[in-house]
């Protein structure tokens, strides 16, 4: 085998391993536990967001669905279930609110108090009884 052929096979081999590695990494990329490092696409108050959804779900979905939003509101309750923490942002005068889902490792519940105004960044996932944000992180 000439030197040129050897070099060809070597480069091909390295290339194959590298592309294999990249495909493998992309295929099995773990889900993010939060979106704190991602670019914020919309900033809105909890009150405005819930009012918009309550009046027209479809048009509000166009604005916010699947977007990374930063929502500011008052903490109404903090719930915990099976390793997930939900912080519920709601004003006393409202009947609905924004339910923000946190991975347990992403929030220190002792640092968040009921009644406190917080800003939560997460993915707007849609509207059930409340607006739901997933993969949240909190700014105190």
């Amino acid at each position: 085998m000439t030197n040129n052929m050897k070099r060809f096979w070597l480069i091909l081999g390295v290339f194959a391993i590298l592309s294999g590695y990249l495909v493998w990494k992309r295929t099995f990329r773990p889900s993010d536990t939060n979106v704190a490092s991602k670019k914020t696409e919309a900033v809105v108050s909890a009150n405005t967001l819930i009012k918009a959804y309550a009046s027209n779900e479809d048009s509000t979905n166009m604005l916010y669905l699947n977007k990374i939003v930063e929502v500011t509101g008052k903490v109404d309750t903090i719930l915990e279930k099976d390793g997930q923490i939900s912080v519920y942002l709601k004003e006393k005068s409202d009947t609905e609110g924004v339910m923000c889902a946190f991975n347990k490792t992403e929030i220190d519940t002792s640092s968040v108090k009921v009644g406190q105004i917080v800003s939560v960044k997460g993915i707007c996932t849609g509207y059930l009884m409340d607006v739901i944000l997933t993969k949240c992180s909190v700014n105190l």
Partner: protein
Amino acid sequence: MKTKVLVSMLLIASLQLVSAQKYLSKNGHVWFYSHTPMENVEAHNNQVVSVIDASTGDIKFNLLQKAFEFKVALMQEHFNENYMESEKFPKASFSGKITNLSTINFKKAGVYSAEVTGELSMHGITKTITTKGTIEVKGTSIIAVSKFTIAPKDFGIVIPQLVENKIAKEMEVNVDITYNPM
């Protein structure tokens, strides 16, 4: 006499108020498993809204498909884009009844077995399902737990041949919800 009638009417009305107890959860946990020799897939949704009416036995669930979280990001993408078509069908719902309501005492602490029948809607298709589970009465809250299987093909979900061996024909669905009085 009149007052007696009035008092008894009031009593009946107040009794109905007490028995018309509804329970609500906004952070219910629903998750599913798909086991195959090739691959195990698991996804969790912790934002399930559910209501139980203790007087009629009505039980309702609502969830957003996009709130299911997978360990691998690409699986979540495939789930939403290829299988559930979450843009077109964003929600799944269940509306049914506890069929053995008389054996459950919502005022006495304990674990009761429950049978539920109702309509499950997702991916634009509605099917009747029947499942067993337990209802635990614990203080003022109640905890409902159930497990059942559903077949993706019953809901018009087409699994391409290429990944047929990686996705189970029957998914195991688990429900674990803590309710509080409304």
